[in-house]
C-alpha cells in the first residue's frame, strides 16, 4: 500500500519529465499529470512493478476541459478553439489495495494519446467510448471505432462542450 | 371395423372412405383445442399463475379465440422466400402427423385402416415430417430457421433409431406389426400389458418385466425428442433460435405447424400406450361385459385410449414446464451413447429370451 506521493516519487525517478506533476490539495482526490505520448510506458510500469501492481483499470474517462478560446458563431452558438482534452485514468491494485488517478491532457485540435488497451483490456471499450464521444485518438488501439454512436455518425463528438446536434442523420430529422 | 360400419351405413364406398378419413381429423382438432388449453392451464398452475380465465369457464374458449385470431391474420411471406416450398412445408408436416393417425387403433372398432404393417407404416409416414421441417427451414431463407431445421432433422432421424429398436423388441415378443392385433393381445387385465411382460406366462414373463420397463423409458424419452418437446425442444429453442423452423410463418400456416405439433404429441403418446400399456384395453375390465351391453365396450375402450394418451401428453407438458433444455451435442450424446446401446442390449436379451 503506497500513497500518491510515494508513487509519484517512484515514477519521477523512473520516467523523469514524462511524469509532469502531482496535484494535491484539490478536493477530493489528488491526481498525477502524465505526458499523453508516454502514458503507455508509465502504465505498463505501474502494472508490472511488483511494489505497485496496478492490475485493474477501474475507469477511464475522457474530459473536455473547455479551456480554449470561445469563438462566437453567426447562429448564436460558439465554437471552442485551442485548449485541451483530457483523459483520466483511475487505477487500482486488487491485491495491494491502493489507488491512483492519472491524467493526461492533449491538444484539442489534434488529440493523440497512447492507448493502454493492451495493458488493461478493460480500457479497450472505455477508450473506444472516449474516442466516440470526444474524438480522442488512441494510438495503437487494436480496434478504435465508434461504440455508442452509430458507426456512420458524421456530426462530430457529442460530449465536447461545443457540440451541436445535426439537423439530419441519414435523411432522418434528428430533433424530432 | 369403422370402414365396414360406415359402408353398411351409407352403402357407398367413397362416402364411407371419406367419413373414415375425416373422423381422426375431427379427433385431432378437438384434441388440439383441449391440449392447448390444458398446456396453458398446466403451465400456469405450475408457475403460480391462473392462466386464461376470461374466455368461458377457466378460459376454456381461449383456444377457439386464438384459432379465430390465427385465421384472420395476414399470411406474410417474405420476398426472399422460396414460395412453392414455403407453402408446401406446413401441409407436408401436418400430412405426416395426420397420416400416422390412420393406423392408430382408438378402440377395437375405431381404427382408420387396420394395416398389417401398422406400426411400420406409422414410423415410415412420420418421415414426411422431417422433409416438411427441412423444407420450411430452407424455404424461409432465414439463418435461424435453417439452423432450427438442421437441428430438427438431425434430432428426429437420430431418435428414430432407439424408437425403432424398442418397437422391434415388442414386435419380437408379439410377432405382429399390426397395432390392432397387438392391442388385442394385451386384453384382460393390467398384468397382460406389455410393460408387465405381455400376455405370456411363467418364467418368461417375469424375465421380461424389467426389460420392458427399460424399453418403455427409452421409447418415451426418444419419442419426446421426436416431437421436439422440452428438454429436447432444441429445433425451436426460443431463447436461441427465436422459434426455429417456423420463425417466418404466420397466420394459418403457423397454425398448421402448431396443429401438427400437438397432433404429434398425441400420436406418439398413443403409440407408446398401444405398445406398452395395452392400447385401448381397460386395466380393470369392462362395464359393458359386466352388464351385457356389448356396444358399450368400444366406447369404454375409446375412453381408455384417450385417457392414456392424454395422460402421456400431460406428462410431456409436466416435463416441459419443469426441465431446462439440453444443448444440441448433449442431445446427440444422449441418443447415441446411451439410448441406442441400451435399446440394442435390451433387444438382444429379449430376443434370446423369446428364442429360448
Amino acid at each position, binding site marked *: 500500500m503506497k500513497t500518491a506521493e510515494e508513487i509519484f516519487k517512484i515514477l519521477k525517478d523512473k520516467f523523469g519529465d514524462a511524469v509532469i506533476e502531482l496535484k494535491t490539495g484539490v478536493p477530493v482526490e489528488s491526481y498525477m499529470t502524465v505526458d499523453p505520448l508516454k502514458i503507455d510506458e508509465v502504465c505498463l510500469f505501474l502494472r508490472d512493478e511488483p511494489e505497485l501492481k496496478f492490475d485493474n483499470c477501474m475507469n477511464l474517462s475522457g474530459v473536455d476541459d473547455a479551456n480554449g478560446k470561445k469563438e462566437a458563431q453567426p447562429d448564436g452558438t460558439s465554437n471552442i478553439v485551442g485548449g485541451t482534452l483530457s483523459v483520466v485514468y483511475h487505477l487500482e491494485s*486488487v491485491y495491494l489495495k491502493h489507488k491512483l488517478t492519472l491524467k493526461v491532457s492533449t491538444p484539442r485540435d489534434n488529440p493523440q494519446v497512447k492507448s493502454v488497451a493492451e495493458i488493461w483490456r478493460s480500457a479497450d471499450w472505455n477508450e473506444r467510448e472516449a474516442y466516440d464521444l470526444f474524438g480522442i485518438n488512441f494510438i495503437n*488501439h487494436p480496434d478504435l*471505432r465508434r461504440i455508442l454512436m452509430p458507426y456512420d455518425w458524421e456530426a*462530430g463528438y457529442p460530449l465536447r462542450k461545443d457540440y451541436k446536434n445535426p439537423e439530419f442523420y441519414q435523411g432522418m430529422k434528428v430533433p424530432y | 371395423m369403422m370402414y365396414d360400419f360406415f359402408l353398411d351405413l351409407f352403402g357407398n364406398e367413397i362416402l364411407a372412405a371419406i367419413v373414415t378419413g375425416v373422423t381422426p381429423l375431427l379427433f385431432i382438432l378437438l384434441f388440439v383445442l383441449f391440449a392447448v388449453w390444458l398446456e396453458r392451464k398446466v403451465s400456469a398452475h405450475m408457475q403460480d399463475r391462473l392462466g386464461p380465465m376470461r374466455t368461458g369457464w377457466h378460459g376454456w374458449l381461449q383456444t377457439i379465440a386464438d384459432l379465430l385470431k390465427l385465421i384472420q391474420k395476414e399470411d406474410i411471406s417474405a420476398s426472399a422466400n422460396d414460395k412453392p416450398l414455403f407453402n408446401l412445408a406446413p401441409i407436408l408436416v401436418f400430412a405426416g402427423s395426420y397420416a400416422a393417425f390412420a393406423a392408430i387403433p382408438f378402440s377395437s372398432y375405431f381404427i382408420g385402416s387396420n394395416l398389417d404393417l401398422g406400426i411400420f407404416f406409422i414410423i415410415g409416414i412420420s418421415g414426411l415430417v422431417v422433409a416438411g421441417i427441412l423444407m420450411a427451414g430452407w424455404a424461409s431463407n432465414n439463418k435461424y430457421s435453417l439452423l432450427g431445421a438442421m437441428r430438427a432433422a438431425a434430432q428426429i432421424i437420430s431418435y428414430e433409431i432407439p424408437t425403432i429398436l424398442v418397437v422391434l423388441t415388442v414386435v419380437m415378443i408379439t410377432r405382429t406389426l399390426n397395432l390392432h392385433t397387438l392391442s388385442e393381445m394385451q386384453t384382460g387385465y393390467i398384468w397382460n400389458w406389455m410393460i408387465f411382460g405381455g400376455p405370456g406366462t411363467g418364467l418368461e414373463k417375469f424375465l421380461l418385466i424389467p426389460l420392458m420397463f427399460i424399453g418403455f423409458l427409452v421409447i418415451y424419452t426418444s419419442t419426446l425428442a421426436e416431437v421436439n418437446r422440452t428438454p429436447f425442444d432444441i429445433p425451436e429453442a426460443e431463447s*436461441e433460435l427465436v422459434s426455429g423452423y417456423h420463425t417466418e410463418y404466420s397466420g394459418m400456416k403457423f397454425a398448421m405447424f402448431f396443429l401438427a405439433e400437438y397432433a404429434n404429441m398425441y400420436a406418439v403418446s398413443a403409440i407408446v400406450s398401444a405398445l406398452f400399456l395395452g392400447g385401448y384395453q381397460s386395466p380393470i375390465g369392462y362395464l359393458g361385459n359386466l352388464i351385457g351391453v356389448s356396444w358399450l365396450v368400444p366406447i369404454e375402450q375409446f375412453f381408455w385410449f384417450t385417457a392414456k394418451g392424454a395422460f402421456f401428453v400431460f406428462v410431456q407438458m409436466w416435463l416441459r*414446464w419443469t426441465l*431446462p433444455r439440453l444443448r444440441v451435442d448433449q442431445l446427440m450424446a444422449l441418443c447415441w451413447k446411451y439410448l441406442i446401446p441400451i435399446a440394442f442390449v435390451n433387444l438382444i436379451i429379449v430376443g434370446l429370451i423369446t428364442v429360448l
Partner: protein
Amino acid sequence: MSFETNKSIEYKPVVKTEHMVLNMGPQHPSTHGVLRLELELEGEIITRVIPHIGYLHRCFEKHAEAMTYPQVVPYTDRMDYLASMGNEFGYAVAVERLLGIQVPERVEYIRVIMAELQRIASHLVALGTYGADIGAMTPFLFCFRDREMILSLFEMTCGARLLYNYIWVGGLSHDLHPDFVRKTRDFCTYFKPKIKELNDLLTYNKIFIERTANVGVLPLDTAINFGISGPMLRGSGLKWDLRKDDPYSVYHKFDFNIPVGEGKVGTVGDCWDRYWVRVLEMEESLKIIEQALDQLPEGDVTSAIPKRIKPPIGQVYARVENPRGELGYFIMSDGNVNPFRVKVRAPSFVNLGVMDVLCRGHMVADIIAILGSVDIVLGEVDR
C-alpha cells in the same frame, strides 16, 4: 464540421467465405434488450463474437452536464433500471463525498436496506431470466413472483415500482412507511424457503448443470485484467466486494460473508459459479437487511439535504457495489450548480467486454448461457 474520419480505423464487417455470420439481436428473445452480437460460426462452433452496442444510448452523460446536481438523480435511475436504488446510492455517495457532508445515521441505514432489497430483486431477475434462457420457464415466473413483493415494498416507500428517485443527495425523499419494517421482516421470513425452492428446481437440476458447468470459464487473471467486477469476479474466485474492500455508507457495521465461486460442479469461474454466487448473495443480503432493521435508528431523513448544491472545484471517483458489479461515478466540478463532467463506470459495460473471450470455441446455445451469466442490463451498457 470539424469531423474527420480516420480511414484506417473505419468499421468493416468481418465476412469470410468459409464462416457463417449470424446476427444475433438487436431484436432477439435472449439478448436481454437491444444488444447485437455478430457471431462468426463454423457450423455451430463460435469462432468470434463482436458485440455491437449503443441501441439504447440516451446521452446520460450529456444530460447530466445540463442539469443541477439534484436533477441528475432521476436520470441515474434509468441506467440500470433493475437496480435503480443502487444507482441513486452511488450518485449520492459521490456527490456527498465531493461536498464533504455527512448524512444522518437513519438515512444511511435506510439506504443500505433499500440497496440490499434492490440487490435481491435484481438477482431474482438475473437468475429467473437465466433459467428462461436455458429453457426452464417455471423458475422465471417464481422469481418474478418474489420480486413483485420487493417492488411492493418500494412502492409503499416512495410510490414507484421501478424508477424511484428516492435516495437524494444528503438524504431521502421520504421517510419509511410505518408498516415498512414489519412488512420487510415478513418478506425476509417468506423469502428464505423460496431460495431453497429455487435451488431444488433449477440450481441442482442435472440438465441445468450440464448446460452451465464448465461453460464460459473466466480465469481470475483475465477477469481482473478485463476489469470485471461484482458476481462475475467473485464467480472467478476472488473475494472482492466493495462493501468490504472499499467500505462506504454503514456497511462496516454489518456482519456478512462474501460468497465466491468454488467450482463446485465444474471449473472455478464457469457459468454455474456465477449463477451460484448470485444465489448465495441473496442470502447474504437478507442477513444485512435483518441486521439493519434491528439497528435502525430514529431521526430525520431530510434535514441534511442541502438547499443549494454547489461543490468546490475538484473531482471525485466514488464507487459502490451494485448487483452487477462496481458502479463508479467520476464527477468533475467546476464550481457551478451543474456538474462539469459525469462519467459512469457501468459494470455491465465493462463486463460485456469479455464476451468474445468467454464465447470462443463454444456453441451457439452456449452464447445464451454465457450472456445470461454475465447478466447485463442494456440501459446501463449504453447509458
